[in-house]
């Protein structure tokens, strides 16, 4: 356990030094603040709780940005160190291969959690300061949105490490990371939508749709945050969520599984690798 913390600490130290932490926090805060003030303009003050609007906007922001940041942090983690020659030295130390991966995961997750909490927290804080009244329910939904954003980040960190252990060159890892991002964030949903349109209104079995949604972590995240409560009504996701048998615990479990499987796979491959 100590070794994992030592590695995590070094990753955070590096993240602070090369401005990764600063850049991601500022980016998330700037976009979150912009969305929360510009985004509320169309709704005006028609009784809708303003934080609920923010939750909808920030969830969409998360789906685009958090996987991208996570993949940028993680795709280089193993192959980059191997290429630069620092991995050889590290592995000659009394440390297990799995500890290297878990340590990096923990460090990167801490960076991501910090950036998300501060960035999104700034938006919520600004709303409070400008005098909006916010119901306790909305606060709860906001907190679970931030927490699940970090969980979505964990999923893509794990996928990034898997890419990083599988490939032999940094540039390949970078290309694959962008491909993964495009696939899960843009292409998958378009293809799913296209498929539903092509089915010409024929009822798709609920179970099949559930499985299709679980197969993409960003859809799992979307259902989790936009599927219920006020956010569901605002985003229009409530309709899908109502027909689906996917409850919040199932969705959280799906995201957790999406983290554990790629991370475990990466560990197994990395442990067998000869450097």
């Amino acid at each position: 356990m100590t070794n994992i913390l030592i590695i995590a600490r070094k990753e955070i130290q590096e993240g602070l030094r090369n401005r990764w932490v600063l850049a991601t926090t500022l980016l998330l805060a700037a976009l979150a603040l912009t969305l929360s003030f510009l985004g509320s303009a169309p709704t005006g003050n028609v009784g809708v709780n303003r934080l609920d609007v923010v939750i909808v906007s920030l969830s969409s922001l998360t789906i685009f940005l958090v996987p991208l940041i996570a993949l940028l942090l993680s795709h280089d983690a193993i192959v980059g160190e191997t290429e630069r020659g620092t991995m050889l030295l590290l592995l000659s130390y009394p440390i297990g291969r799995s500890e290297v991966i878990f340590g990096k995961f923990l460090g990167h997750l801490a960076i991501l959690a910090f950036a998300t909490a501060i960035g999104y927290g700034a938006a919520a804080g600004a709303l409070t300061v400008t005098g909006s009244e916010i119901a306790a329910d909305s606060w709860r939904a906001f907190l679970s949105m931030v927490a699940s954003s970090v969980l979505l980040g964990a999923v893509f960190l794990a996928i990034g490490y898997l890419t990083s252990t599988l490939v032999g060159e940094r540039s390949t890892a970078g290309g694959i990371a962008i491909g993964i991002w495009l696939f899960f964030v843009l292409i998958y949903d378009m293809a799913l939508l296209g498929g539903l349109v092509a089915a010409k209104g024929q009822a798709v079995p609920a179970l099949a749709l559930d499985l299709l949604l679980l197969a993409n972590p960003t859809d799992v995240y979307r259902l989790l945050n936009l599927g219920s409560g006020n956010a569901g009504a605002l985003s229009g996701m409530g309709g899908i969520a109502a027909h689906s048998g996917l409850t919040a615990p199932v969705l959280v479990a799906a995201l957790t599984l999406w983290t554990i499987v790629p991370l475990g796979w990466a560990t197994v491959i990395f442990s067998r690798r000869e450097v």
Partner: protein
Amino acid sequence: MTATVSTAGVSKRYGAVQAVKDVSFTLNAGETIALVGHNGAGKTTLIKLMLGLIRPTTGTISVLGEDPARGDFHVRQRLGYLPESVSFHMALTGRETLSFYARLKRVTLSSADALFERVGLAQEAADRPVRTYSKGMRQRLGLAQALLGEPRVLLLDEPTSGLDPALRRNFYDLISDLRAAGATVLLSSHALTELEDRADRVIIVDRGIKIADGTLDELRGIARLPTRIGVRLADTGPTPGWTRGGTEWKGSASGLFEANVAPEDKIALLHDMTADPSRLAALSVAEPTLDELYAHFLKGQSPT
């Protein structure tokens, strides 16, 4: 002498490439060993095998009584390694880098700090990012991390490449200290001359095969390389008359005569020559250089 590292019949194959073939040797405590060979001769592979980073295809390796590939971390705590062209995380300072490695080896940070002085890295340089370091400074930092935790076995892969002569001397002084403290030091190098007679023992590898193993004197004895004797006669005459052991003199236009003499004839021939000092104007005796010795062993190995 106690053995710290021993390999028995070790081979390593990467696909079709046979990187190391049937290598056996034993390294002892308090011994400095030079592992010499061309680039690609299998030196780095041997070091990686001793570190347990890769597993041998056949054969066994034991480091401090354990199989290094089994992942026994106690052994690695007593092992120091300096990779060829060492690199670090550029954004961190030298001190942060060394602290990181010290934590991994469970070494107190104060003793890590003391290493900066030992390798000759100034305190103000220790707080600068590694990005700003020169090659020599990086090499010193690399050496500092290898020395963490007073290792009993040090594996240094081409440690002096890129160091200026002053640094190199400083480096060899450090090695002498470590040897006195009873550590096994393995230095790899692609040239025998680099070692400046610092090693107790030399192991020469070529294309994955161990082709020589012994002290420099032993290797000289095995190689039986001739000593070159040069002489200038006091009176300009024909070829010198000394012919012990079938010595053949070659003259040059400047009046200098040279001959290659087998080691066992050397003393006797010199005795003959100096019997009448008045005949000699100048005399020089050149022992075979390390380069010649190295070339001899590599030549014996090349396919005919």
